[in-house]
């Protein structure tokens, strides 16, 4: 089962500011689509889910995890990370959102390890958001996540 770093591969993008949460989902969705993980339809579904069900995908201060159903066009499991330095509003109590971690899974199992790791690293979500938001490059972000995840693994071993 893939962990966060493997699932993320190199799909990280940093933006200064964006006009709307819809644009944020579109950009992070395109990163997945370019790598043939999802279809165009999946991006539209992610936006529809947030419109219909509200901003519940903003799971912690500054962090959103948009997704749709496997049958909405998820070809395989994968993640993308969009960093919005100035933040964008999702109309959530956890606004502004700085990290948009979109994911797709073709079944109900492939993303379990990702969710487990997410549950671990979110326990210090304030620092996570600040470090990633202030990173100067995508390599910095990957290195930060690498260190964070290996430290967590040692702690739980």
């Amino acid at each position, binding site marked *: 089962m893939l962990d966060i770093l493997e699932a993320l591969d190199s799909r990280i993008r940093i933006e200064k500011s964006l006009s709307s949460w819809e644009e944020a989902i579109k950009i992070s969705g395109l990163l997945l689509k370019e790598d043939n993980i999802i279809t165009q339809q999946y991006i539209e579904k992610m936006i529809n889910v947030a419109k*219909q069900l509200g901003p519940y*995908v903003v*799971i912690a201060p500054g962090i959103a995890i948009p997704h749709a159903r496997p049958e909405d066009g998820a070809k395989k499991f994968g993640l993308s990370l969009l960093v919005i330095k100035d933040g964008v509003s999702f109309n959530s109590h956890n606004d502004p959102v700085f990290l948009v971690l979109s994911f797709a899974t073709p079944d*109900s199992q492939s993303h379990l390890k990702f*969710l*487990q790791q*997410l*549950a671990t690293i979110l326990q210090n*979500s304030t620092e996570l958001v600040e470090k990633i938001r202030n990173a100067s490059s995508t390599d910095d972000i990957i290195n930060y996540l690498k260190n964070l995840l290996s430290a967590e693994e040692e702690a739980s071993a």
Partner: protein
Amino acid sequence: MEKNRPLRVVTACGLGTGTALYLKMVVEDILKKAGIYADVITADSSIAPTLETDIIVTALDLAEDFKGRAKAKEIVAVENYGNRKEISEKLLEAARRIREE
């Protein structure tokens, strides 16, 4: 509540596949550490309010929508999924009320 039956918990999100699964893992961990025997399942937001269960654990935005129509005895509304203390306090408080019935 009658003794020796597991506490029934439903973790819910919009689709039942992402944050509900996330919450299921966190909730199971919290209940296990508290020594509470429980049966935890996931559901999407169309099914969750119709389930006759003890507790629904879900996001604040969805909890507002469930209120008044959910068949569950308790609804735990989570604001920050990273805040284990928040989830734990709200969940164990709801579990205590169920036990005292």
